[in-house]
């Protein structure tokens, strides 16, 4: 990379459960509020930023230029260009890398990477047969042709279709896929509930010490992550019924992420731009890799980041012992636990083409301010939540501290990145 790319700030709105306090807010509303909060905190009102890259997983057809429209609604200069990207649950990390790469190449001096999702305001589609009939009717040249098209509409065509979080090639939901992985790796209910409880307790502690004061802007009377349950415990979580994996399943609503609403953004820049704008760089973007697995042939849907992690560390000449903090996105508690098990597994790692096991890590260095189980997971926003959180944590630890982010995504994909405090 030619230019050093630094994370100089971030902002998000508190995340909340779908159908909760943001039920009436659109992705446009939440993304605009997030951008404006970042602009207000960093003093960028009226500023032309090099580029804003954002995205949403659940997207209305009218929102094809969601990010650009949010920029126009925001206090940024209207001459700030923007584009939409989508990499499922890793969107916020993919937008970060897209802009970091452009900054590294000298194409940009500054950029805002973002992600937003509203499970409350999800688009609802018409059935495919009805859609085809409507399109045919719109192409009809005569009233008779139009009538003939409409005459084929049947009551069963009229049921609206809400988006499903299901894999097109397997028909399994993400939870059902993860239930297979959970069983395959022998992840216990106790481990999952323990990880979920720790996520809530660590997030609560981070809020209590004011860690999020310069990372979160209140929105619609919500000042703090609304899914967070500081008083939850392993005992309470143990009482929940299985949600995935059948009656003997170990995955519950407590150790799986909730459908969420929220938005997050990261401010990236060259060191020179940061200095000119009196902003303190927190961490530099070192490297990243995107990866995929063959889940239609049975590979674990959410373990694609494992291969990327091994290759990325090797490319940088690092091992897990050189990493101070780990951020593994908690799609499900068992995703994190299966990822850690895979990192330790010599045969599995060799099977991915790595030289050997990635290694064992100290859990005290993992998700130290909690993660998606406690914060919530508005799909596209999660990566853009994690990047500034980790950058600030590394900055607190001092120059040279390294952190690794691993985010799994639908389609058997994932993105992994390394940051280093400056």
């Amino acid at each position: 990379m030619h230019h050093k790319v630094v994370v100089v700030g971030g902002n998000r709105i508190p995340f909340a459960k779908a159908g909760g306090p943001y039920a009436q807010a659109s992705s446009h509303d939440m993304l605009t509020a997030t951008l404006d909060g970042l602009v207000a905190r960093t003093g960028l009102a009226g500023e032309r930023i090099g580029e804003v890259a954002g995205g949403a997983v659940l997207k209305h057809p009218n929102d094809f230029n969601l990010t650009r429209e949010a920029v126009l609604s925001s206090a940024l200069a209207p001459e700030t260009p923007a584009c939409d990207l989508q990499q499922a649950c890793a969107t916020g990390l993919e937008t970060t890398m897209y802009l970091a790469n452009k900054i590294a190449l000298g194409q940009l001096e500054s950029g805002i990477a973002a992600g937003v999702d509203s499970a409350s305001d999800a688009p609802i589609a018409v059935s495919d047969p009805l859609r085809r009939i409507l399109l045919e009717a719109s192409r009809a040249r005569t009233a008779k042709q139009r009538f003939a098209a409409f005459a084929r509409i049947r009551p069963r065509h009229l049921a609206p279709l809400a988006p499903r979080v299901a894999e097109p090639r397997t028909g399994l939901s993400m939870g059902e896929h993860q239930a297979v992985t959970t069983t395959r790796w022998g992840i216990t209910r106790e481990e999952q509930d323990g990880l979920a409880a720790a996520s809530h307790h660590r997030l609560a502690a981070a809020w209590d010490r004011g860690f999020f004061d310069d990372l979160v802007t209140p929105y619609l009377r919500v000042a703090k992550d609304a899914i967070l349950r500081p008083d939850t415990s392993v005992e309470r979580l143990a009482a929940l019924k299985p949600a995935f994996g059948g009656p003997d399943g170990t995955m519950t609503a407590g150790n799986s992420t909730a459908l969420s609403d929220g938005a997050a953004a990261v401010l990236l820049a060259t060191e020179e731009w940061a200095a000119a704008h009196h902003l303190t760089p927190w961490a530099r973007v070192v490297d990243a890799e995107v990866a995929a697995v063959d889940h239609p042939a049975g590979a674990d849907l959410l373990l694609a980041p494992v291969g990327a992690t091994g290759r990325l560390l090797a490319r940088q000449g690092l091992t897990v012992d050189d990493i101070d903090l780990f951020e593994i996105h908690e799609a499900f508690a068992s995703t994190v636990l299966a990822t850690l098990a895979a990192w330790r597994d010599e045969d599995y790692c060799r099977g991915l083409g790595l030289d050997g096991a990635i290694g064992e890590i100290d859990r005290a260095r993992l998700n130290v301010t909690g993660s998606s189980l406690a914060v919530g997971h508005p799909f596209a926003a999660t990566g853009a939540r994690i990047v500034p959180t980790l950058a600030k944590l590394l900055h607190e630890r001092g120059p040279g501290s390294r952190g690794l982010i691993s985010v799994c995504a639908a389609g058997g994909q994932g993105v992994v990145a390394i940051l280093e405090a400056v």
Partner: protein
Amino acid sequence: MSLDVEVLDALPPMGVAFARALVPSRPGEARIPAHAVRVEGVRQDLDRLAAYSRVCGYTLRDAVPATWIHVLTFPLHVSLLGDRRSSVRLVGAVHASNAMTMHRAVTSAEPLTLEVRAEGLRPHTRGAMLDLVGRAQVDGETVWEGVSTYLVAGMRVPGEPSGVAREPYSPGSPLALWRLAPDLGRRYRAVSQDPNPIHTSRVAAKAFGFARPIIHGMWTHARAMAALEGRVGPAHTAEVAFVKPVLLPATVGFGATPAPGGFDCAVTTRDGLKPHLLMSVRSAS
């Protein structure tokens, strides 16, 4: 000037006062109430704010639009003009202009004290003019002020009408076209709770000399402000002249020209030749 203030327990329901306000003014001498009406501790309904924002084109933010606070004061307009001490009625009174000032960003979480009084009754060549002066306060601090000027045709006020300067307008090509659907009046009624049937009923519109229902002037004002979102500071003043009503459905033009400290805007016919609404917005320095 000290005024009597009648403090109401809550925003008046759209009941008796509304019914009275909806009876058109009878020609005669114009009288307005000398008292102000006030409601304290008005909590803002987030769902209604969200619906209002969708209809008017605003992004749903923590800071609320100035026009939203006007909508919150509207029941007090109705209450005041529905009072027996008023010979001027809401229906048949034409909204001629607005001057609205936001002194600082107001969030949807802040409870408001709202107050409206009628003043400035004055002769006009076509009848009488008056101002409904609204104020919103948070903990005694005035955060919003709005002056709505109405023309009541056929009513008399002693004195000579002073000449009213026509807003200057030079035709130009619109920068944007807005397509106003036939049901826009109904949709805006649902969020504004302004039941004036002139906006929703063809029959009522005809009774007042319009071929079709006309969109609320406050919608057009709000839509024009929404077009400037992100460009105007949280503290600002907007002055609006309602030049000519927009009959629904319609396609109208919009244009904004930068001016020192803000913008001069016009909502026009789609060819840009004639204005419907003229607005100047200035950010507080």
